[in-house]
């Protein structure tokens, strides 16, 4: 692969956690200016909600390059290891290091998709089984106005929903996995069930995870607090902005409707669509 410039190495900050073997690399890059002016930038004028995601992508890269997210994980031999090979940059001292440029691309797609789903008032369910972050994920979901499930996953929750949840229940339109594995280091049941129920999934896949069934996998570290907090914050911002955008557009339509039918001609043209 050759030597990459140092700014591509992921560095870790923050406390040591998780079982032994997850080492933190010292941050090699200069911290640089903390506050990103981009985050406060106004939403682009076009109605497409992809705008905020592009903005966010720039922030993310800068942040990650500043070393807020550790992307190291111990070498794992197993079925998943083969599937995660394309995402792995290399390994150093028995730690697999995830390729950040690929992560950026995948994260861009995932956030874009999330923003679209949130814009179209879809139900988003956050799933994660690491008990350390259970409280954080639930708080984040509540603040977004979306839903979370970081508890024991009952067998037929998605596949047998009418019986477990109620006769005419509406299933989630998107499931976001902050931890793809459950506490026994096996793939979470919801991954398979969502694929069965044709629910798109976004998931943060670590080097010991299987990204096969996930629609928008995002290679990244799911064990360390700073990285999980970063992902939580990103999803939260995306969803809140998409909803804001939706409210703005609805207000705009109401105004246009009040002005008269003449203004309606512009309506369909400005309608954002996934294909746009």
């Amino acid at each position, binding site marked *: 692969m050759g030597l990459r410039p140092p700014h591509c190495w992921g560095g870790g900050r923050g406390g040591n956690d998780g079982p032994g073997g997850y080492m933190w690399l010292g941050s090699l890059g200069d911290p640089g200016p903390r506050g990103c002016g981009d985050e406060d930038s106004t939403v682009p004028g076009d109605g497409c909600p992809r705008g905020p995601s592009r903005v966010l992508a720039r922030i993310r890269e800068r942040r990650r390059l500043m070393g807020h997210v550790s992307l190291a994980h111990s070498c794992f031999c197993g079925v998943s290891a083969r599937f995660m090979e394309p995402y792995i940059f290399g390994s150093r001292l028995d730690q697999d290091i995830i390729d950040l440029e690929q992560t950026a691309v995948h994260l861009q797609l995932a956030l874009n998709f999330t923003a679209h789903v949130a814009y179209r008032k879809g*139900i988003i369910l956050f799933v994660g089984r690491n008990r350390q972050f259970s*409280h954080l994920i639930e708080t984040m*979901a509540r603040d977004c106005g979306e*839903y979370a*499930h970081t508890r024991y996953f009952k067998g037929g*929750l998605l596949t047998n929903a009418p019986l477990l949840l109620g*006769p005419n*229940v*509406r299933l989630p339109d998107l499931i976001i996995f902050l931890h793809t594995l459950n506490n026994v280091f096996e793939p979470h049941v919801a991954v398979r069930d969502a694929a069965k129920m044709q629910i798109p999934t976004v998931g943060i896949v670590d080097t010991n995870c299987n990204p096969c069934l996930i629609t928008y996998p995002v290679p990244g570290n799911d064990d360390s607090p700073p990285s999980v907090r970063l992902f939580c914050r990103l999803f939260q911002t995306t969803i809140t902005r998409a909803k804001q955008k939706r409210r703005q557009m609805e207000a705009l339509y109401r105004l246009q409707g009040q002005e008269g039918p003449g203004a309606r001609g512009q309506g369909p043209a400005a309608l954002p669509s996934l294909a746009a």
Partner: protein
Amino acid sequence: MAAPCVSCGAPLSYRLFLGGRVSFARRHGVWKAAAAELQIGAGSQILRLRHTTGVTTKKNVAALRRETYTVDFIKKQIEEFNIGKRHLANMMGEDPETFTQEDIDRAIAYLFPSGLFEKQARPIMKHPEQIFPKQRAVQWGEDGRPFHFLFYTGKQSYYSLMHETYGKLLDVEKRQNQLQAKGLFSENTKTKDLIGSRWLIKEELEDMLVEKLSDQDYAQFIRLLERLLTVQRDAEEEFVQQFRRSVTIQSKKQLIEPLQYDEQGMAFSTSEGKRKSARAKAVVYEHGSGRIKVNGIDYLLYFPVMQDREQLMFPFHFLDRLGKHDVTCTVAGGGPSSQAGAIRLAMAKALCSFVTEEEVEWMRQAGLLTTDPRVRERKKPGQEGARRKFTWKKR
């Protein structure tokens, strides 16, 4: 699931499915309705019950099982109950405005006398809130989005409670860390609040959350609360007190009857005693010559058997006060021996007020102050008596 019975319709069957707790009470939907509609005479409740279930197609069998009571249905039931109550009051000739639940129960027992042994199987007429189990309203709005952020876990109230408690625990820990960092240590002053109270039991928690819990869930929750209290004893008092119930501590001390004085100035003390099915009340006078009157009859004539008279003698003999007290007692129920035992207990309890605490303790150790818990054991079917089996024949 039991086949729906013709008269009561499907609500009966799925009530049994929902839980045995109200299974008996359910049948009385018919009784209650009958009582209420007796005067009205308009279309019987029985028929109406059959129609509320709706058409069941093959697709909706699973939905029928969990059919819930709509808010309108419950409201209608409450209205009907109130109207029925007024009619019942009129029937009994009482004032409808001041007709309480006890009056209703008495009226129903009078109008529908039942020879059934099981109290819960008899006709009842109670407020619908007590009959229909509490159920949750629909959990999502018109657009299908659930109201609660933990809806998709299945146990939303329980998990949101855990989430809240854990949040409080984190806050308390943070505050403690801050205090410790500054060097100020809080003192535990309020340890007494938890004495005399116990944690909620699982059933009470289920009622509070209107949700079924497993034993592990309940244990986990109690453990979390205990953890919160270990960090800081008086943390989040109102929150913790929600899950505390007071326990009446029964004092093990012997209750000593206070002395009373009659017209002549003679001190006396009364108390009660029981044995098997005999109930006795004894009045022991301070100064006397050892006369005992039972139901107005002298004890020598009332208890011809020596053993019974010995029983009466025992408390006085124990305290060496044989000829020093006069006793008047009344006794009812039981046979001669149990009446004697009941009077003995009553006299011993009454004597406590004339005697030192040390002697009271001696009496207690001698067994004079303990109610004999033995009662007649019932005869079982397939046996000749309570324990005796039929003669075993080899062939």
